[in-house]
């Protein structure tokens, strides 16, 4: 178990290094300089390049990035908040916190709503409730996040005025409702579909029939015997969900004007603020990679039959 974790962490470090390399060379391939403004002269750009070490060869710059990151130094912002340390922008100005809160709420909602819905649909298989849920979930996975977000914005914020249109720093419960629902709807529906399928698979297995024959009540049959085994595909899916929620947060954060990490990443790319691009990419990627590791470990807890050391494709 421990050796597996160490191995995975090493792999994660390798992946992060690769991501840093890709990001570094891609962002340096963006035409234009971060210091190019209406007032800038070639001299001022050169001066700024020198100040932030952008005049050095790319390989040296990349090496500096890697060494600084290893020491926990994310550099200073080049443009958007010139001179401010990037770690301060991300972690102290509440951007990371907001995005994490939003993402975790959406993830929790998707799990808490999606799994029971899937169980109910499987239990009532063929009934009207199953049919109704199937229609809802099928439509739910076909609506893009931004469509749902904007429609909710128009309906609940503009027309009915029930909920705030701009969630800003997410001060209260109300301002969470629309961003979280629009962020999680796709995954709620997908998890419900997944749970239903895998629950039906499990229900038809022999040990469930045995339990039924021994007189286990339906309720505990589903909750205790069947659920555990049918959760495995759902857990597998949680890795991609994390990546997807980060993607969705780009849209949701710009629709509801939430100053989170996703919105800031898009802005930093458009502004060519190299250090910020690099830092947000690494932080978000690390989040996804970490989540994938957690998912793989969660397997082990849910299903002891899975051996982690023997890696089977």
């Amino acid at each position, binding site marked *: 178990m421990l050796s597996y974790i160490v191995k995975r962490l090493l792999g994660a470090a390798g992946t992060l290094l690769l991501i840093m390399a890709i990001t570094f060379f891609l*962002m340096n391939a963006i035409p234009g300089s971060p210091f190019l403004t209406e007032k800038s002269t070639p001299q001022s750009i050169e001066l700024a390049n020198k100040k932030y070490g952008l005049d050095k060869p790319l390989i040296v710059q990349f090496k500096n990035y890697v060494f600084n990151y290893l020491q926990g130094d994310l550099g200073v912002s080049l443009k958007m908040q010139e001179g401010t340390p990037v770690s301060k922008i991300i972690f102290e100005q509440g951007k990371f916190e907001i995005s994490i809160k939003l993402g975790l709420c959406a993830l929790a909602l998707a799990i808490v709503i999606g799994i029971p819905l899937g169980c109910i649909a499987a239990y009532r298989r063929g009934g009207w409730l199953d049919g109704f849920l199937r229609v809802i979930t099928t439509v739910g996975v*076909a609506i*893009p996040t*931004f469509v749902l977000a904007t429609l909710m914005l128009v309906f609940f914020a503009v027309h009915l005025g029930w909920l705030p249109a701009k969630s800003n720093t997410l001060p209260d419960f109300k301002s969470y409702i629309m961003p979280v629902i629009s962020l999680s709807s796709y995954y709620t529906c997908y998890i419900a579909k997944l749970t239903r399928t895998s629950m039906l698979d499990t229900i038809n297995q022999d040990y469930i029939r045995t339990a039924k024959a021994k007189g286990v009540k339906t309720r505990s049959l589903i909750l205790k015997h069947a659920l555990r085994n049918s959760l495995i595909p759902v857990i597998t899916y949680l890795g991609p969900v994390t990546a997807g929620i980060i993607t969705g947060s*780009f*849209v949701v954060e710009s629709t509801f004007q939430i100053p989170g990490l996703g919105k800031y990443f898009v802005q930093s790319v458009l502004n060519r603020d190299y250090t910020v691009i690099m830092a947000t*990419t690494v932080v978000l*990627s690390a989040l996804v990679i970490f989540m994938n590791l957690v998912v793989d470990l969660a397997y082990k807890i849910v299903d002891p039959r899975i051996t982690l050391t023997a890696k089977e494709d």
Partner: protein
Amino acid sequence: MKKPNFAKVSPFVVDPQPIEDAFNLTPEDFAGTTMEERESIVEKHKSVSYWKDAARRFRANTVSMVALCIFILILLFAFIGPLLIPYNYEDQYRSAQELDPMKYSDSEQVVLKAAKNADAFFATVIQPGSMTAIRKGSYYIQQDGQTYAFTVTKAIEKTILVYRKDAENKLSLVKMKDIGDDGTWTESTPLEYTDTPEADAKEIKLVTGIFPHVFGTDSSGRDLMARTMFGAQVSIIIGIAAALIVLIIGSIYGSVSGLAGGVTDFVMMRIVELIYSVPEVLIVLLLQVVLKDPLQNWFDAHKTGIGGLLGDLGTGIVSIFITFALLYWVTMARIVRGQVLQLKKQEFVTAAHALGASKWRIIKRHLLPNAVGALVITTCLQIPSAIFLESFLSFLGLGVSAPMASLGSLCSDALASIEFHPHRLVFPAVTLTVIVLTLNLIGDGLRDALDPRLKK
């Protein structure tokens, strides 16, 4: 769960006829079968090919068939629709800004009024859409087998051109304000014309009525229905092309990896795993910005051939294709490799090998036909995900840009005036949702039809 339908009669009791009858055989009982009997046996046991069987299963699936029909309707809407409506996705029609659905602009209403007078007159717009003005230049009209050519030396404003079938001077200009509610007018200026148009003359088409702006117009006066049709076209083309790119790269990579095995397989799969764990959207956003200028330069340098073709699509769309080619093939590669590994071990492949079949023949005759189901399903389900990605990028302002349109960019454009004109969001958004929904359902149906083992 349905109970298996056990046969009511045991298969061992063939015929409950008396035992003594069974031994009373005549020479006729040993006669050879006639041709008809043989044919009926062949007919009864006619082998059904894999594809026929799959098609039958697909047709039996009501949901997928309905989805397929709706998708075909959307294809007609997107690809045939633009030919039927008089508006263009990129033209900005004068005085037609900010119209609600099913409305006409002021100048179009005048033409509508004039068109009521159809008995004696034939009302026409000078240029569909921008009816209020006719610019300097030479024009001609073809009507009743005759050509009427005329030259305009000064731009004419707020006037429509009228063709009168029975009048002496067939063409005349009528001021829009002079046209009454019943479509008649008292004052008109005859237009001088000849029957030989000049070399650079433009043809003007006569119209008897005006098509409404069914979905309304945007703030620049572009017809939203034309734009939605065009956007759907762009989205569908992107989806299919991206899925094909993924199919080609993924299946080549996956089959090479699976067939080669050993160290090659190991290295190739580690590369796949690395790409798989990269959060692709972060890279996609970067790629979009990075590729914009180099692609534009390349298009400017290569105006003919493939460069011109891709240039028409625009940098946004081409960089989406590049993104798919770089990052999104890994799932396909994994599935293909899995299929190849699974099939490689099967007895019929060993048998073919033992019989001396060449490696190429094994791939062509045995591996490919067996893996094709999985390929079709994955490719089909890749289309909606490509459409999703494109709309996501366009929504963030990185995909296609005006006057080009995709469903994502239309939704994004609609956001600016969402409080007053929510319909501008609704039409493209609903189209997008229906496309993705029907493709998902068709994909599900294909999976059930092509791979019945998976059916739950």
